[in-house]
């Protein structure tokens, strides 16, 4: 590791992060932040599952206390669709709102971002696919993440499912970074085990990919590596003690770190392939990532031996020759899946050879590939999909 340490990269790198409030009961700040941001009428984006929790009621009464009007939009599915974005924007306009409050996981927050983009820039959400395509800032956006994985509440990413073409569009822009994120581990306590596992694996994936990203920087590396360490130590514990705020808080912090890292260093083939896969089969994003990650590490390893070795060290690789870092990481990730009770393979999820062709076809065009340490060919992606069957 001496070579990397000795040579210090001075290439231009930006680091962008929203204002965020981290801590227990941060969610109660929602109404006052809406007010501070000039909120007159709040467009509260959430989903059907969360409507059953007390979080929504708490926020509504907070807004009532601040005498801020609001309109609730909850027609958001996992892997939010363009139609949900457009319908949301329509309702936003109709109810004459001027600020967006997103309470939910990655799907809800990405949908809220999509709505904001359309409100300010008009047109169809599909127009804004890709990197740096949003000219006009969106309305103020306040986020309360209810999962510890997606980190959409701090990222420059919004992923919207293009149902028509069967893949998830990546929209990457500074414009989609929220104005304020209220990161409250308390809200994680209503997650079930599967959701905890999937989103946790998503966070781990973010950290892995950001760390080995060819656009990473010293700052992102710091967050990525720390996120991996925290997840390694705390994620599985959440399943055993879901109401423990301490472990939930650490996983939440890990998710935040991973989010800050990938938001700025971007991602890699795992996400490129998961976007295609999740879009086509409407699978949980975290599950897709969990299945794909070990195989992508395997594929990438030689292109980022040092970075992967650092990760391996961080999670307990002894560093001797008895087991290579590659093998250590592969086995670690496979075992972690099992501990998290994620037993699926792509084959079990219904992926076939034929489907793989389509998945690779879409995945190869995903912007996330751009920062993968090993520049992928379509064939490479097909091979990885096959390996994950």
């Amino acid at each position: 590791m001496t070579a990397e340490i000795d040579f210090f990269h001075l290439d231009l790198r930006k680091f962008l992060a929203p204002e965020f409030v981290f801590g227990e009961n941060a969610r109660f700040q929602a109404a006052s932040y809406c007010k501070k941001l000039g909120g007159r009428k709040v467009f509260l984006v959430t989903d059907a599952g969360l409507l059953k929790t007390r979080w929504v009621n708490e926020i509504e009464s907070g807004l009532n206390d601040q005498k801020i009007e609001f309109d609730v939009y909850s027609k958001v599915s996992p892997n939010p669709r363009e139609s949900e974005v457009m319908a949301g924007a329509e309702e936003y306009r109709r109810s004459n709102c001027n600020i967006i409050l997103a309470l939910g996981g990655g799907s809800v927050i990405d949908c809220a971002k999509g709505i904001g983009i359309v409100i300010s820039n008009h047109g169809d959400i599909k127009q804004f696919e890709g990197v740096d395509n949003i000219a006009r800032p969106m309305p103020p956006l306040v986020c309360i993440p209810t999962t510890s994985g997606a980190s959409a509440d701090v990222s420059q990413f919004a992923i919207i499912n293009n149902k028509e073409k069967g893949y998830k569009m990546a929209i990457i822009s500074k414009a989609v970074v929220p104005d304020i994120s209220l990161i409250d581990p308390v809200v994680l306590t209503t997650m079930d085990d599967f959701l905890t596992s999937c989103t946790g694996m998503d966070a781990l994936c973010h950290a892995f990919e950001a760390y080995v990203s060819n656009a990473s920087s010293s700052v992102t590396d710091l967050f990525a590596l720390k996120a991996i360490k925290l997840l390694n130590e705390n994620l599985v514990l959440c399943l055993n003690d879901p109401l423990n705020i301490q472990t939930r808080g650490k996983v939440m912090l890990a998710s935040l770190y991973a989010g800050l890292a990938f938001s700025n260093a971007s991602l890699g083939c795992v996400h490129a392939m998961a976007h295609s896969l999740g879009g086509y089969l409407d699978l949980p994003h975290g599950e897709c990532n969990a299945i794909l990650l070990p195989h992508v590490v395997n594929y990438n390893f030689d292109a980022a031996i040092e970075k992967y070795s650092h990760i391996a060290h961080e999670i307990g690789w002894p560093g001797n020759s008895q087991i290579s870092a590659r093998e250590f990481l592969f086995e670690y990730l496979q075992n972690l899946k099992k501990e998290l009770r994620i037993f699926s393979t792509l084959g079990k999820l219904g992926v076939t050879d034929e489907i793989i062709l389509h998945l690779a076809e879409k995945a190869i065009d995903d912007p996330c590939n751009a920062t993968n340490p090993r520049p992928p060919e379509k064939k490479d992606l097909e091979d990885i999909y096959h390996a994950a069957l």
Partner: protein
Amino acid sequence: MGQGWKKYREKIIGLGENSSHKSYYPELQDKIEELETSKKNLQTILDSTSDSIVIHDVDGKILLLNNQAKLFYNIYDDFSKYTVFDLSSKSQDLDQLYQIWEGVLQSKGRTLEWLARPIGLDYEIPVQVSLNRCNWYGETVIVAVVRDFSERKKYENELIRARKKAEESDSLKSAFLANLSHEIRTPMNAIVGFSTLLKDEGLTAEKRDNYVDIIQSSSNHLLSIINDIIEISKIDTNQVVPHFKPVKLNALLSEIFQIFSMSSGETGIKLELCKPAMTSELDIITDEVKLRQILINLLTNAFKFTEKGKIEFGYEIRDKLRFYVKDTGIGISEKYHHVVFERFRQIENDISINKGGSGLGLAISKAYVEMLGGKIHLESAENAGSKFWFTIPLKINPASKDISGIPEEALKFEQKKAKILVAEDEDTNFFLLSEILRKHDYEVLRASNGKVALDILSGNQNIDLVLMDIKMPVMDGFKSFNLIKKLYPKLPVIAQTAYTLAEEEDRILTAGFNGYIAKPVNKEKLLKAIAPFLKRNN
């Protein structure tokens, strides 16, 4: 081989040039874009209008000109060196401009008419300027919208002129109609009334003749009224212009005298014509028809308003020709003097109504006099007679043989027009005097002794001066002088005698002679001696 992701690489590690992460209110963004659009639109509108638009700072310096303003004010170089004062005509009151400016700065927007001046050009343009205070990129400014009023001013003036003319002709028309209806009613009543009476079967021949006479005279009267009305209408519409031609003035006056001597005979009112003493006919340039008409009008009036006494008319020569008609009639009260010449105005008094007439005679006369280049005046008082007098320029006919060569000064009345009676028994003495006086255009009459002088004076009251010899047969100068002074106390009489004794001279002056010249007569002394009296008399 597809690697669609490749295009994203640069942008992912880039700085995100196309977007800002910071959220704005979309409303604010909308406003910003609206503002940008409206700014562009404003510039387009500013440059499209045909009015000049100038934006000044509070001190009047130019901050912005639209295209039209550049054209209008002839500004193609750096306009920032000019101020509102440079754009104003020098004939405008700059203090006033300063006051207006201060008012506008206090939000008193104004629209006013002004005179603009293009930079570097020496003419002014009437404009309408609207001044308003506003805020221009954070600075208090005054916006001037300047509209070229040249054409409009022109039309406005034409319109004012046309309206004035229309109003004048309208009121004239009304007055004309009112007058017409009023004036023709009297003679028409007579004509209608008496022609009805003519049908009466039991009418005597005498009465019928009487009625016919009335109808005829009324008809004539009516005709003259209509003629007058037509004439004054023509004058009012500028259809009457003078025709200047040579006129033999004395002949003209004699002719008029002849015309009115008939009226004189009928009424028993004495008519006198007074012409300056002249050896030759006065040949002048004027409009004979109008001059004749003026005098006829005045004389007609004089006869109309004079029941007894005399009417005198004539002219005098001063720097202008001065005609007059003087009567011993009822006179005109001073309070009416200012209206007698007005058109369609008549003094409402019984006699004038009884005497008939259109009431236009004097108005026509006044118009004619003015047309000939003179003025008409009235001197009169109630029951003290009237004297109308008017002047016209004295223009001697250049072709006139009799007067050509006489110096302009010599045309003065006191040296050449007076009639002098020379009482002298000696032929040679008379011949000498007569030669000198005639040469200076005096009219000379001879009386061979004092008695003859009295006879001549009694038959010719136009004599202005008498040169009286002292030693004469039949009646000497002293005796004749005493009688003349009794009969004609104002008539100047100058003695001329060969007596040179101081005693004789004393006696002459004691007797009351107006002057004295010694024989042999010296030309200069003679002219000098007579001149003061002739001047004084006129």
